[in-house]
């Protein structure tokens, strides 16, 4: 069974080699796709060099212009659809925040519980200082968790986590339509509302190792408003997928 790890990368020349190195411990069956999102630095060359040395099959797709995290991740889903042979697609940050040791657990959890989306959560178990984001961000994350729970009835603890594993029902749909910027809470809400099975798994996260966060301080207010509105708008849309069995408890 093959699984695809999608790494969206925008100006990540510094952190990318270490991130890919951490993934090399995964067993056969895992493949990596780096989506270079129109980076202005040497990410393109670094990714090409990594492709020639990686033990796991490593593919590189270059978006000619910077399109944003949502488009970059969706390119990964579209790659998976075009290939046709993957079971799960894992979203994994290029900046070294995510711990590759938890990828297998995410995939196993997805398969054991037949989840469509399993989110790696920083807030279920305490893995020590620095692993749970800043205080201000935690407030925003709790707000989105509350909003998603209130609007869909599905309880989650880390809706903004970009460390997640998607089953075929979720990634095939997201290949067709996926939120553009700040896509994590919105896509999670879509899954929850459309009856896809959503779960969470405690994961450890690290401090950023380089690059620039896609959410800077000035963007924070816009982020809160945009994502909240997107969730509210999605709530008034028709559901697309027939509801399945009740949600598993997280």
């Amino acid at each position, binding site marked *: 069974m093959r699984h695809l790890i999608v790494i969206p990368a925008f100006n990540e020349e510094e952190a990318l080699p270490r991130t890919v190195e951490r993934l090399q411990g995964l067993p056969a069956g895992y493949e990596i796709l780096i989506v270079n999102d129109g980076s202005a630095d040497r990410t393109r060359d670094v990714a090409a060099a990594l492709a020639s040395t990686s033990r796991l099959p490593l*593919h*590189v*797709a*270059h*978006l*000619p212009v910077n*399109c944003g995290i949502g*488009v970059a991740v*969706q390119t990964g889903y579209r*790659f998976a659809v075009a290939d046709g042979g993957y079971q799960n697609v894992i979203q994994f940050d290029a900046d070294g925040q995510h711990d590759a040791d938890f990828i297998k657990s995410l995939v196993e959890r997805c398969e054991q519980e037949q989840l469509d989306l399993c989110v790696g959560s920083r807030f279920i178990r305490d893995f020590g200082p620095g692993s749970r984001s800043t205080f201000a961000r935690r407030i925003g994350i709790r707000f989105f968790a509350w909003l998603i729970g209130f609007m869909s009835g599905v309880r989650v603890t880390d809706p903004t986590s970009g460390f997640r594993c998607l089953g075929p029902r979720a990634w095939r749909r997201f290949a067709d339509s996926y939120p553009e910027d700040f896509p994590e809470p919105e896509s999670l809400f879509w899954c929850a509302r459309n009856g896809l099975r959503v779960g969470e798994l405690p994961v450890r996260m690290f401090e950023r190792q380089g690059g620039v966060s896609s959410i800077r301080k000035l963007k924070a207010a816009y982020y809160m408003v945009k994502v909240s509105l997107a969730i509210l708008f999605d709530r008034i849309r028709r559901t697309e997928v027939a509801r399945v069995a009740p949600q598993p408890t997280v």
Partner: protein
Amino acid sequence: MINAEFLMLLGGVGAFVMTLYWVRVRELRERYAIGWLLVATLLLLTGLFPDVLKTLADRAHLSYPALVLFVALGLIYMNSFFVSVALTKHYRWNVRLTQQMALLEERLRRLEDAHGPVPIEQIETETE
């Protein structure tokens, strides 16, 4: 003497000429030209028959300038809104094309890695 009606008439003629010119040189698509021709027609009609607007203003209990402002703002709003809709649609097309290009480039690179680079002349011969 210049008054509001005369200016509307002038604006209507100007809008007609401008729209027709841009369509003629293929810088404006016919589907967008229809909206602008309607605006030009409205301007012309209100210039030629000022009593229509005056009657409307009386019936709506508005002053003449207030009604003109209301209609103008309505037109600007509608136009801007549909430009936003068109931009959204074009953004989606652009994204799809960009992604498709990135994926095709990746696939081509993989094929070339496996079979060696294909000379451009060969591709041209095969597609002829």
